[in-house]
């Protein structure tokens, strides 16, 4: 990826993603943190597009931005007395150490390794190929994911359903 557009796009999106991720850590107010997290998700979706993964990018927007963040907002709103403070526990220092170590190690390894990449260019179209793969090669995981989603949905409903009330 050597054209100017890709390079500019990568750096901009990387800055957006990491910047808002850092802001999520630092900001105190939980609602604002979720809003920034959404920005971060959108940045990741943009990065997917630079990697010519259009289907995954759109799915990222649909699921992470449209669904999971809304769920989080709901959870924050439905727990009003829990406080909206996004503060750290006493794990702060070990957390920083561990995370720093992790970042350092992975970065070092990825820089150190010879990835022997073959430049193959981006994909022409991913959606149909992914669809075929899902329903052909990966049909069992696909079905399992469906079952998992169903189980998760039922579980979530059962968990939050107030005891002693019935749907009319």
């Amino acid at each position, binding site marked *: 990826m050597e054209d100017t557009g890709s390079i500019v796009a990568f750096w901009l999106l990387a800055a957006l993603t990491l910047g808002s991720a850092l802001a999520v850590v630092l900001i105190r107010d939980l609602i604002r943190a979720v809003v920034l997290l959404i920005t971060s998700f959108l940045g990741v979706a943009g990065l997917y597009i630079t990697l010519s993964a259009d289907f995954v990018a759109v799915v990222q927007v649909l699921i992470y931005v449209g669904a999971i963040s809304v769920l989080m907002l709901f959870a924050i709103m*439905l727990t*009003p*007395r829990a406080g909206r403070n996004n503060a750290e526990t006493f794990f702060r220092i070990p957390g920083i150490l561990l995370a720093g170590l992790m970042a350092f190690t992975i970065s070092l390894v990825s820089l150190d390794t010879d990835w022997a990449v073959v430049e193959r260019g981006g994909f022409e179209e991913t959606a149909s190929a992914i669809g075929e793969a899902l329903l052909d090669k990966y049909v069992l995981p696909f079905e399992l994911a469906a079952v998992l989603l169903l189980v998760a949905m039922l579980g979530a409903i059962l968990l*939050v*359903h*107030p005891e002693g*009330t019935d*749907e009319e």
Partner: protein
Amino acid sequence: MSMKTEPFVVNIGPQHPSTHGVFRMRLTLDGERIIDADMVIGYLHRSMEKLAEERSYTQNIPFTDRTDYVAAMTGNLAYVLAVEKLCGIEPPERASWLRVIMSELQRFASHSMAVGVFANDCGTWQTPVMHMFREREKILDLFEMACGARLTTNYMRIGGVSRDVPPEFRPALRKLLDELPMRMGEYEDLLLENEIIVARSRGIGVLTPEVAINCSLSGPMLRGSGVAWDIRKADPYCVYDKLEFDICVGTDGDAYDRFLVRLAEMRQSIHILEQCLEMMPEGPVHSQITTATAQPGGQPSAPLTIRVPAGEAYGRIESPRGELGFYIVSDGGPAPYRFHIRSPSYINLTPLRELAIGATVADAIVILGSIDIVVGEIDR
């Protein structure tokens, strides 16, 4: 939603698009469900009952315009009936007929407001209200013809009405009556049969007849619960005993039935007005002014003060909202000793708390709309 949330308090009103004035509902909500409701009234209190004790009997008539400002004619009528009962005055025949015409026109106008606003509360974007206003305007034109005012009519007088209707009144009313049944058909098709209004109001705010009677409700509220009760039949005043009409009752006692009863009563009003046009006699319109009067220029006016013997009287009529009664105590002086209004809007609010609890916010608005309050009458 069945998700459990913290209860929180919402003030619907006093400034709110659908509290029909300055009425306030303090709702405690669990999500969208109402778990407690508090009615706060008094934002439009003008101390009418006390003020009336300082003014002569005739001077008090304009007050009755302003209690229920959506139905001023019936307010006038109930008051003058009470005073006439106290004095033993019998108004001339034609005056009684005019009173019936005016109160039925008023009933139609008031019910069309109630129906339109109810549809608004169900969420139509002003359309039924505007259409209802079209008919109401024509009725107000008739009022203007008869007494010069449109909203606060001040038409009834103790002993009759302020003046006879002009000659063009009759053809105008005739024209209106020819038009109204068609409009009513339209409203019944578009509102009564409307799927969404049915879905929104059926089974909402169910009042059983027992509760309705125990809360001493009256008017469409009571009839919506299936109790066939109408002062015009039970205690006929003016010339209602000579007229033929039906009591319209609902069968489920829900918001839809109250709405339904109002629409049906509008048809009955048309029926009554038809009979009035046929049967109304000529003659004087005030007991103390014997000549059948000509028009404004040379018209003698009714006396401004009257002597009322000591005693008490209760005059009641079927106003568009229910039993409107005036309880007058006189000590023989120029002003009433006690002037009490039994206002139907106020009493019809009694069951609102019970109806609202367990409903959703949207339902509460529909229920309030089906009660058809006029804040001026609640607070007086």
